[in-house]
């Protein structure tokens, strides 16, 4: 099993959590990627990355006004200074006793719990369980770019699983779920049009 550690939990709730990581860890996570936070031998929470946020500080603001930034200064700021990189993760399900549920987790992860990027196998296992039940968490989420997150997620699954059929079924499911919400449907289909 691939175990790419991408950060630690900073704060968490029933519907999602925020993880922090160093800039050097930032190559692994991407918008729409499925991540997991193991909370015990038989229980782990799954989530989708819905945002990646990098805070500035006074020094960074001053450096960018100075023009050219030398490689040494760039490395210093990225590797030595505390640059807070935060990932917002939407809880989309959990695994308990080997069974996947597309429900909100019974309890959230705790501060400093490690989160990992899901391996291809875990991605298949989670996305193929049930019938896209976790899409409702994404569609109900507030303040996230729903269409973009779904497009990034579907592209990620198709590229990693090579399962074209899954992408088509996912799109049909989204059309069904959004049949009464025309503006969101158009927004989602617009984004999906870029990847399907």
């Amino acid at each position, binding site marked *: 099993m691939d175990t790419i550690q991408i950060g630690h939990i900073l704060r968490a709730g029933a519907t999602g959590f925020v993880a922090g990581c160093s800039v050097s860890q930032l190559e692994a996570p991407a918008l729409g990627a499925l991540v997991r936070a193991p909370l015990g031998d038989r229980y782990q929470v799954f989530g989708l990355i819905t945002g990646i946020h990098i805070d500035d500080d006074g*020094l960074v603001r*001053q*450096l960018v*006004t*100075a*023009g050219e*930034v*030398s*490689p*040494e*200064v760039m*490395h*210093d700021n*990225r*590797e*030595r*200074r505390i640059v807070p990189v935060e990932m917002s993760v939407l809880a989309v399900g959990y695994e308990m006793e080997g069974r996947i549920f597309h429900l909100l987790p019974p309890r959230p992860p705790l501060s400093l719990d490690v989160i990992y990027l899901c391996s291809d196998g875990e991605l298949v296992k989670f996305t193929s369980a049930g019938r896209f039940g976790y899409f409702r968490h994404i569609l109900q989420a507030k303040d996230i770019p729903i269409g973009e997150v779904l497009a990034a997620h579907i592209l990620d699954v198709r590229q990693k699983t090579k399962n074209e059929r899954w992408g088509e079924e996912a799109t049909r499911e989204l059309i069904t779920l959004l049949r009464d919400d025309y503006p969101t449907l158009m927004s989602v289909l617009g984004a999906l049009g870029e990847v399907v």
Partner: protein
Amino acid sequence: MALNFQQVFDQIREIGAGARARREILDALRKRARTLFDSWADKTAELADKVERARQADSNLRCAIPLAGRLDASHPAPVDEKPVTLLAADGSQILPDRHAALLYSLVNVGAIVLETRSGRAPETFTDSNLYYADEIYTETGMLTEEAIEQRRDIAERKKLLELAKPADGPCVALTDGPVELWGAKNGGEGDYRKNLEIHKSVLSQMQAKNMTVAGYVDKPGADLLIRTLEIAGLADEQMKDIRRQHPLRGVSDRWLFSAILEPGCRSAIFGLQSSSRPHYTGSLALHFFYLNVGQAKRPSLVRVEIPQWVADDEEKLNLLHAALLEQCRIMGARPYPYILHRAHEIAVVKFEEKRQVEQMLEIELRKAGSELDEGSNKQSAKDLKGRSRNQSAGRAV
């Protein structure tokens, strides 16, 4: 209400009303200073003699000693593309607080090593020293703020010495503030004398490692050359009363050199006349120059203090000059050496960290069954809810 704003407002209006008159006086003083500067610019030997006579009248005199060459010399930025190892250290300290429950002190030194043109991330280091029980007392009583600051200054330079690898090529070591160790300079203070010997020993070892050592003084307040010009304008019979003679008070070295030094240029090198001069002799004798790290319409004058072994070495001077300009450029419109800012950032002890240290110390002492004191009632009253949010900007004792 903490302030009587009516009284303060009246005083502010008076200040405003006198601004024009003060400006006229300052303009006249500046004109006088500039005239003196121009007329003495090529008479440095004669001026140095006057400074010596003034020093004989007052050994605590603090001013610039003109050396060979012109006073108004300006040296342009050297073209130096050579890679150099830059070291910087800065320190912070927690002072013993007799009102606190725990009586301790802490000196924290942050250091950074940056190899220019390497493309690599710099290395950062932190050394923290906790002083407790007997360690916070001297023969004469509890460690003073001054004594702790001296320990901090020495720790900064020791760290720079430890990090220097002379085999790796040219190495510039920077600290914020003067190279001179501050403190009671009459030599009678045991602590100062002891620390001074350590300080000089560290400087000598830095020289042995062929390091280019400098202290960077941003917005310098000591108007050393203006003081020298004041001496220049005095008759010999006025020398005995030198302490009271400040005919150019208000005029600053920064103003004087901002009209002389183009961006990137440094001034002539001057010797430093201060009460510590007898202690820093030979290759450790302290010198300084001014450097304009600003831009065409916004000069920014800083003072750079160096020991004699650096002042005497053209290559080291150029290396230092180029390195400081490059470091200041990184910070854009508010020039200050990036590496010094980073050393400060590493060294600073945050309030939360201070609290954690105190908690750890308290837990350890409790486990060992030690008797723990309580904070003072005065401190307790100050910490009462409602007051703690309005922390005083000044220090009321």
